[in-house]
């Protein structure tokens, strides 16, 4: 089996296996396991793993500032700097915050994404032309997915709070604004799944990207797709007793867990996949979420030109000053007519 198929199918089989485990398991007497034990365990692993990873990261010194070539650094007063330069190559904390905000909220680095391709050349029909073009589709897919996922997550607070806070209800109304189908279709769910399919298709159809994609790249995609699809099926097709679902969810967060009878297995599939996502999060590429705050080329003021930064792992280096060198080789140097500082 070739490399791509192996990594693709392993990840797909893993997610389908998880679905099967939850589907079969929830029909036995193990509902307490899938409804209570697994969610608590997943929350515990998520928090512990997150703290652990942050401790490891906090122990790594990041001594050097990396001014980016995308913006003119602060220099001689007559070299003008536009707002872009200040945001891309910030010299003060204020603009640094601006750069981080653009990065975290608007995915600015992805927006700069370039694609390099061989295209047909009208001037040279026999050959091809190498072009670099600004490829925004990745940025669009990524930002659509992330914001839709955020809205989906926040929307689910209606199951975990009682009474449901007003902002959550407003968000839900806005999300179901078109009142299309019953129950009203949430736009965020559709956007999320479509964006995920795009991100997956991009990985599969682009040969160079397919070549570097591992099971760890496909697994989160399939997992979140599984969550999205099971959620959408549960809302619009295979309906569950939603009051019982809320009772279970509220029980979890009030620390009085209950497993009301009569919840269909598809709910447990959905819940189990979410638990796996939380438990998997700290040990995977999904840590890019906290990691974006740690980007060394983004989160430091580019002040190398006027502040000295000392490498914390510098060790004393043995070196020979010039005069000692001359003392050692003076005679040979005079013989070879090399000028010396001192004659004897």
């Amino acid at each position: 089996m070739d490399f791509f198929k192996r990594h693709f199918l392993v990840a797909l089989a893993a997610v389908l296996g998880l679905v099967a485990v939850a589907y079969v398991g929830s029909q036995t007497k193990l509902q307490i396991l899938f409804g209570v034990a697994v969610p608590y365990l997943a929350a515990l692993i998520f928090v512990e793993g997150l703290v652990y990873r942050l401790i490891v990261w906090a122990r790594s010194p990041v001594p050097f500032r990396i001014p980016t070539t995308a913006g003119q650094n602060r220099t001689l007063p007559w070299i003008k700097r536009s707002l872009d330069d200040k945001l891309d190559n910030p010299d003060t904390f204020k603009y640094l915050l601006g750069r981080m905000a653009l990065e975290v909220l608007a995915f600015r680095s992805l927006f700069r994404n370039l694609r390099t391709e061989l295209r047909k050349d009208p001037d040279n029909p026999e050959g091809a032309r190498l072009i670099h073009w600004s490829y925004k589709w990745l940025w669009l897919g990524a930002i659509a997915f992330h914001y839709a996922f955020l809205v989906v997550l926040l929307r689910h607070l209606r199951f975990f709070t009682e009474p449901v806070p007003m902002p959550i209800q407003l968000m839900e109304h806005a999300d179901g604004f078109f009142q299309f189908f019953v129950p009203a279709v949430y736009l965020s769910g559709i956007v999320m799944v479509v964006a995920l399919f795009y991100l997956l298709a991009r990985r599969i159809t682009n040969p160079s990207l397919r070549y570097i994609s591992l099971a760890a790249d496909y697994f989160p995609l399939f997992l979140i797709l599984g969550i999205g699809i099971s959620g959408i099926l549960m809302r619009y097709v295979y309906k569950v007793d939603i009051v019982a679902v809320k009772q279970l969810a509220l029980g979890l967060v009030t620390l009085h867990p209950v497993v009301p009878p009569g919840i269909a297995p598809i709910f447990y599939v959905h819940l189990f996949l979410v638990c796996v996502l939380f438990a998997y999060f700290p040990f995977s590429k999904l840590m890019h979420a906290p990691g974006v705050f740690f980007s060394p080329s983004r989160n430091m003021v580019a002040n190398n030109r006027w502040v000295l930064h000392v490498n914390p792992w510098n060790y004393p280096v043995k070196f020979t000053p010039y005069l000692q060198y001359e003392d050692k080789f003076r005679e040979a140097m005079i013989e070879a007519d090399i000028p010396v500082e001192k004659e004897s």
Partner: protein
Amino acid sequence: MDEKYKNEFGAFAPRPQVEKKFYNGKYIFAGLIVFLAMVALPFLPNVGKTIPPPVRQLDTPVIQKIAEKDRQCIMPTEWMRANHMQMLIDWRDNVVRTNEKGAPNGRYFKAPDGQKFLASLTNTCMECHSNKEKFCDQCHNYVAVAPNCWGCHLTEGKKLAEAK
């Protein structure tokens, strides 16, 4: 301690001795605490409480008149809990939007046991379940659902004229 980097020509430079401490720890852990606090915030007011789920009240006059063993909705209760919205919207579409004279499923709903019911929220469902606050609204509020039935349907007093 004297561990050195190695290449094919041998050891060449001491490995960096990085002091074991937190660098920028205060920012990192402050960020972590802010994140965990934000996650916990929506849940904190209810921690430790027991919140009872709403109980559907079936004590309306019409239901009281029916003998205990005959109290049966037009579909099984479990099914109704999950799917009533679908049924109501199908009724609406059949009656208001697509109904033609003599259409088989237009004005009437045929239950699995063969009984026929008038497909009407106000006249059929709310004949028995006349207690909207205690039957419909409780659960809808509990799961923060705002169905738009009541934009048109009268909830009390007047009934629609009998269709026929």
